[in-house]
């Protein structure tokens, strides 16, 4: 579960990491109020709340110097999409005079199977870019979960990154608190970018990211409100119903079973000249309801011209898949999109018979089925 900046900042603030004064706004009256109180009637920064990096470059962050400008900027931000994502909330903050920008982040290193602390003297750009363009400006430290992040490691990193010693106490404090948040929230990522040094020498978290492990949400009753919001998200909703779905955006809609198989099918569609519309894995529950949900979801996607069903069943019985598919298809009724189906595995002969009885031709060969779906979608 990814938190919005304003949500993450709330928890950072509660854990005494310095954050700018700010108010999250979704109405005109709220922004007017924010300009007066947060911006002291002089100047504010308006930040679109979207769960995607590179927001500033995409025009999602603006400065306003009057109440009128604040309102018009606010309206502008709401009407605009950031990398395809709509904006419904804007965080209005005081403007920080920045002397220097740093980066600090904590995530999990799958190779070491431990937390990893990332620090850089080049904040303000994405960490991927720092890693690629100036790897020497990125310090990485694998954290021993028994001991956390020791102060001397931070001092060592500051030395290597040529960060002025003047802020060492503040930086140690921020990183230790960030690590506490990382553990306390079962986070997969906590990040401050930029961590700004203001003109009066104070460190302040100008941006904040907090991603929480979906598998650990049950441990966090304090996040109930956020979880509710998260559950309303389309992909989370589908997952709860047994359909693991990610929108990708091509012309061939997929319905598959198993994550690896679904990915491999996407790859094949691509290799044969088509574009997969989605990742859609129904292996968590083969029944008419989840199948219907999967088909409807695929049909609702813009630009889908054909559907490819591909499954290899071990324990999933193909006669069950066929029955569920036919029942779902009949229930939806009147679908004009062409479909290519390939089933293999347990009880496939019975599955084929059921499909045939209802007018669906089935492929025995995966590659012929993919080719057909790609041709139909062209």
């Amino acid at each position, binding site marked *: 579960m990814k938190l919005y900046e304003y949500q993450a900042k709330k928890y950072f603030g509660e854990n005494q990491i310095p954050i700018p004064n700010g108010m999250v706004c979704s109405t005109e009256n709220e922004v007017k109020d924010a300009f007066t109180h947060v911006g002291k009637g002089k100047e504010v920064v308006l930040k679109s709340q979207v769960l995607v990096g590179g927001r500033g470059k995409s025009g999602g962050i603006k400065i306003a110097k009057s109440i009128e400008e604040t309102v018009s900027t606010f309206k502008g931000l709401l009407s605009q999409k950031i990398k395809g994502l709509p904006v419904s909330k804007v965080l209005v903050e005081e403007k920080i005079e920045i002397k220097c920008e740093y980066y600090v982040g904590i995530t999990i290193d799958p190779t070491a199977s431990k937390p990893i602390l990332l620090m850089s003297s080049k904040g303000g750009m994405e960490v991927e870019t720092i890693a690629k363009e100036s790897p020497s400006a990125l310090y990485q430290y694998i954290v021993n979960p028994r001991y956390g992040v020791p102060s001397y490691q931070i001092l060592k990193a500051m030395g290597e990154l040529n960060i002025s010693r003047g802020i060492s106490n503040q930086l140690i404090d921020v990183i230790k608190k960030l690590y506490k948040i990382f553990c306390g929230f*079962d986070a997969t990522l906590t990040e401050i970018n930029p961590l700004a040094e203001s003109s009066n020498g104070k460190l302040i978290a100008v941006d904040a990211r907090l991603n929480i492990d979906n598998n*650990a949400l049950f441990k966090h009753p304090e996040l109930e409100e956020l979880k509710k919001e998260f559950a309303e998200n389309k992909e989370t909703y589908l997952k709860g119903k047994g359909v693991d779905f990610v929108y*990708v955006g091509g012309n061939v809609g997929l319905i598959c079973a198993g*994550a*690896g198989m679904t*990915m491999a099918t996407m790859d094949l569609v691509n*290799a044969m000249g088509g574009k997969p519309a989605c990742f859609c894995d129904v292996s968590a529950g083969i029944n008419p309801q989840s199948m219907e949900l999967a088909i409807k979801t695929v049909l609702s996607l813009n630009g889908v011209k054909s559907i490819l069903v591909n499954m290899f069943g*071990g324990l999933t019985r193909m006669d069950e898949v066929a029955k569920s598919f036919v029942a779902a298809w009949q229930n939806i009724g009147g679908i004009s999109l062409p479909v290519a189906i390939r089933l*293999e595995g347990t009880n496939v002969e019975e599955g084929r018979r059921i499909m045939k009885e209802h007018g669906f031709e089935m492929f025995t060969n995966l590659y012929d089925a993919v080719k057909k779906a790609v041709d139909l979608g062209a």
Partner: protein
Amino acid sequence: MSILVDKNTRLIVQGITGRQGSFHARRMKQDGTNIVAGVVPGKGGQDFEGIEIFDTALEARLVKDANASIIFVPPKIASESITEAIDAGIKVVVCITDGIPVHEMIEIKERLSKEETWLIGPNTPGMITPEEAKLGIMAIHAFKRGHIGIATRSGSLTYEIAYELTRAGLGQSTVVGLGGDYIKGTDFIDIIPLFEKDPDTHLIVMVGEIGGTDEERTAKYIKEHCSKAYIAYLAGSSAPPDQQMGHAGAIVSQGRGTFKSKVEAFEKVGIPVAKYPREVKDIALRLLK
């Protein structure tokens, strides 16, 4: 021969009376696995279709001389069951459960580094030495006894690839599902040395996917330490970056673990990478000629 499990495997099933546990215990038994006990706290002394149940894994191991365990318990308590199996001194532990919090896996990994237990999974279909022992949920008809070792991060693709091999007459020594999670008990780099040492394994197939750097590290390891033939297949060439695709592991992050970097790593050390799942079989037939 085979790796980790064979006809001498004496298996306990943790969570044998649950919905998944009971269903799969029955199937594993049908498929010829020697299940010696079940473990369900509070149900010690009862039995499940003739299989004795114990309260703890330690009792089950001591009384029944068990050397392997398979775990079918809900995600909230799965890491505790893994710890219990490690504490009981069980050699091979397979955890089928999907959805264990990653911070709990960090602790398990820390623990495993000091123990001799092999943890396979979590979030895996399990492992099978065809015609000897199945510690998992896979349907056995896709597999057949033979000389190809398979290690894989994807359950569904394992069927596709194993079935094609089986139909071409190429059986398997042992097939290990490493699991789809971000942090796993056993990675490619841990399992490869076992296949390398097993005289019955002549060729090893690795089924990987985007995310993590395990494939890259393994390629380097094979170059430096291995002499057998290897084939790789990788899923996720078309996945958009930073999007989680079902498997928690399959996320391309911080510019690492991309499809390209994995293909390059394997090809650089002379390991052929199959473009399609079926090509694995074609390459295997060529290499074994």
